[in-house]
């Protein structure tokens, strides 16, 4: 295998490189933690890798409507940022569980989203947070919702030559990421669940809950029936139990060497319950949101 590695400093330069050759001949590389494995497995055989590391994709900006995260910010930077931890705890908690510290120094959110792994720990919280992506290409800039953008493993709505510029994550949003693994650190989650509570559009007493599972089967799954069980800031014990039961009923599960279907279903139920309870508790201590 041989390829050339390029470090463009302007987006125009990057596009020039990315548009060379037939599809697959030029690939963007961020932290490389997934791409290099893909090369090793023979999934890709690029002629050129275009590093995004010197492009202006490292913004981290907090505004009234949320936080804008440059696609190339290393996960470790986000993890250490107090505002991220306070504002979007569901995402911060999930980031904290990705691989090891060494890995998180290289891995990026942009890479995680475009890799679109079925077992990603970051897609559930990002989707539950109703994240939007800004994509840039020579043709211009467009904004898409993450939820419809990810289609399956290595499959997204990204067009050739397009680069994920940043992620827009509404903040602050109380929430949590609950997960279970055979080995707590540096393992793939048997089940991961993100729970996030959004204020109703235009404020008011009522809220919008988002519950998204990962690792259970295929890609992430939004659990809309479970979400529908919850309407209030602080759902009753019965409503929480109902949501957990619905979640276990509506999600799809597979049996593989990491867990049996039955165990995954059970875990999802436990983790959804805990996720809602902890979201309520953390929102109370954080003083609303």
């Amino acid at each position, binding site marked *: 295998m041989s390829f050339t590695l390029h470090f463009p400093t302007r987006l125009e330069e990057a596009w020039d490189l990315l548009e060379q050759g037939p599809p697959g001949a030029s690939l963007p590389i961020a932290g490389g933690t997934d791409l290099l494995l893909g090369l090793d497995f023979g999934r890709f055989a690029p002629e050129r890798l275009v590093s995004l590391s010197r492009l202006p994709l490292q913004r981290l900006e907090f505004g009234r409507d949320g936080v804008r995260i440059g696609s190339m910010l290393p996960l470790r930077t986000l993890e250490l940022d107090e505002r991220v931890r306070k504002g979007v705890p569901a995402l911060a908690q999930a980031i904290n569980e990705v691989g090891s510290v060494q890995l998180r120094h290289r891995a990026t959110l942009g890479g995680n989203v475009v890799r679109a792994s079925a077992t990603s720990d970051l897609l559930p919280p990002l989707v539950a947070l109703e994240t939007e992506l800004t994509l840039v290409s020579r043709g211009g800039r467009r904004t898409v919702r993450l939820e419809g953008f990810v289609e399956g493993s290595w499959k997204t709505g990204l067009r050739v030559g397009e680069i994920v510029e940043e992620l827009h994550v509404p903040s602050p949003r109380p929430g949590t990421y609950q997960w279970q693994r055979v080995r707590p650190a540096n393992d*793939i989650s048997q089940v991961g669940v993100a729970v996030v509570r959004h204020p109703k559009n235009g404020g008011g007493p009522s809220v919008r809950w988002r519950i998204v599972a990962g690792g259970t089967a295929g890609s992430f799954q939004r659990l809309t029936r479970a979400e529908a069980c919850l309407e209030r800031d602080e759902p009753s014990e019965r409503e929480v139990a109902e949501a957990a039961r619905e979640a276990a009923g509506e999600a799809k599960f597979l049996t593989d060497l990491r867990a049996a279907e039955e165990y995954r279903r059970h875990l999802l139920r436990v983790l959804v319950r805990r996720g809602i309870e902890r979201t309520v508790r953390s929102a109370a201590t954080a003083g609303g949101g």
Partner: protein
Amino acid sequence: MTRPDALPKAEGRVEFGADLSAPRMLWAAYATAPHPHARLRSLSVDEALATPGVRAVLTAADLSALLPKRKPDPQRPLLVAKESRFQGEPFALVAAEDLATARAAARRVRADWEVLPAFTDLTKELPSWPTPEVMKGDDRVNAHVLASRGDFEKACRDADVVHDETYRTNMVAQVPMEPHACLARVRGEDWHVRTTTQTPFGLREDLVDKLGLPTERVRVEGTWVGGGFGGKNEALLEAHALLLSKRTGRPVRLALTFREEFLFSRTTQPAVFQMTSCVRGGRLIGRRTRLLLDTGASLPGRDFALGYALGFTLGPYRLDAWELEGYALRTHRPPFGPHRAPLAPQCSFAAESHLDSLARRIGVDPIAFRRQHVWEAGEKTAFGQEVPPFAAAEALARGQALERSWRAELPPGGGIGIAVGFWSTGTGAGGEAIVRLCPTGLTIVQGEREIGTGSVCEATRAIASRVTGLPMEAVQVEYLDTSRAPFDSGVWGSRTTIALGRAVQKACEALLHDLGRRGLGLGRGHPRQSRRGAPEVRLELFRGRVMVRQGELARPLVALLTSQERKRGGVEALGKEYGRSHDIDRSVVKDGELYPYSDLIASVHLAQVAVDRDTGAVRVERYAAFQDAGHVVDPEGYRGQVEGAVLMGLGTALTEEGLLTPQGRLQNPGLLDYRIPTIRDVPSELQIVAIEGHPGSGPWGAKGVGEPPIIPVPAAVANALADATGARVLEIPLTPERVARALGIISARAPTQEVPGMPPVTPTGGK
């Protein structure tokens, strides 16, 4: 004290096996059997050979031309000839100008396989204990052991309680961070291999055997070893690399990928333990173990494991009557191989879980129950040997005191477990070392390589320093190949500091004795010379020069050397340690073999766990290891061994297992789904207590430490889990799902249907 290898390793300056290279070197790769048991119908190497850059492709048919003198052993083929015996068994070798070409060509060796039924699941094939009639005719039985003392049946009849349980353990691998790797070069009569090995001499013997060459023509040279854990004891890939070199006339480098490490290195396979114990009047009176041991594709005659393991299932406890029976079975898994205290963690898991559940059943404190029965020095072992100095009773007493203080602070839902392990050092196999004293310092000349424990590069120096009086920095180690080094049997069996260390100690003593006899050059008849009980000779360093001191007198070493010694650069002495032979009361053995112990080493461990009652997840929060040290030679090295062994044991206890499909193919041959502990799995509290004063046969009474501290870990954790939940999990590892089943959170039985194919999970290794 900083180890001499620490900085070079941190800076990437030491040469491990995979770093080896030579001018004109070829890179080699394997083609391996995809099925555990399959007939090789046909084989074509044309396409592989035609690949540009390929210099040789070897299959079984090519070997006799390369090894005219070797008597072919159809039972131990170097490459699959007719039938694969396990998944991953090599059937072709490729050498090429670069690694990518070698690997690509290996994939182009076309093999047509007829898949045959594979025996890989003990429980499925032998759901209940087989009758002797059934097993007699079974050619899969590699070994059978039957031994007893007293009347076990009668003990059962007399008992108030007869306690019966079946425990299961799974495949675990050594997983050294450095895969096997070697560089081979055949030039004329010289078959030379540099390799990452724990036993250069043992490996040479193995090669002599495999290749049919005279010993003196095989030369093994160790490299720095990035962890062995028993996995680098025998020749795995060296013969293959040598054959490729013989064929091509060029140096050949061969290294395993991680996938290959999991598929065909020699390791621990599953075992089933049927444990029965009887109690009368609160006293343990009888124990029977029936053991089915999967020894993979091993062959009869290489099955010491069974007899050794069985002994450990009796525990270090007094018993009126006992019976041991076991079968070592040949299966279509990789051949059994040594693995840090081979099978002892598994035996301890079964025996110590069983003892614990028995104590709880009869309402006795599990620690008190152990203290009531544990061996003390001077009494007899189950096999009739006299118990040598042994710290088990003291360790249990100290463990009990700590358990009380932990229990006083135990959070609700937590649990504390204790377990005992015992082990015997591999001191019977001998070793020799030479020390060479030069005017600037002392060199230990020997044939081992440092495998990471510090036993070679640090402990031998600590011993020499202590005997001679020279500071550590004036003592160095020289590593020679097997054609020049004094013989030693290897870095295994917790023996290095004990046996090689003793050889170094004796060599140093002989050296001092020799210098003492020369006197300090003060002339014949000097009063200090002739007086009996003259002060011992000691060495010291003065302005970078070695001084010989006797009482108040000191002379530079050079002054004591003969002119020949001065020309040679110094004076040498040889030390040999061949241990003492031991035996058991042979009358207990009815069939097969049992083995004697040399030093006995106790490990008493305490674990405190937190259990998530909703998910079955177990977390180890506090851990304490009371170790029977004999004498600690190198405190930092000692602590490192215990910490490492505890962590490795936690992997066996909680997360590590090889998972097979119903067809017997390994589903997780990689570090993603074969889960060794990470730094985040270290318990937040880890106490290590070295108990001295029960001497062993090493220097100053030292006992081996490499293996003993891994032994009780799985049982200690399982017992803590039982303490927390009241539920006994009869199989390790204690994964969350398995615990959830035992706790009744989900149904008791795991599904057995074939799971969908998983995508490959590991990269194919280094480039």
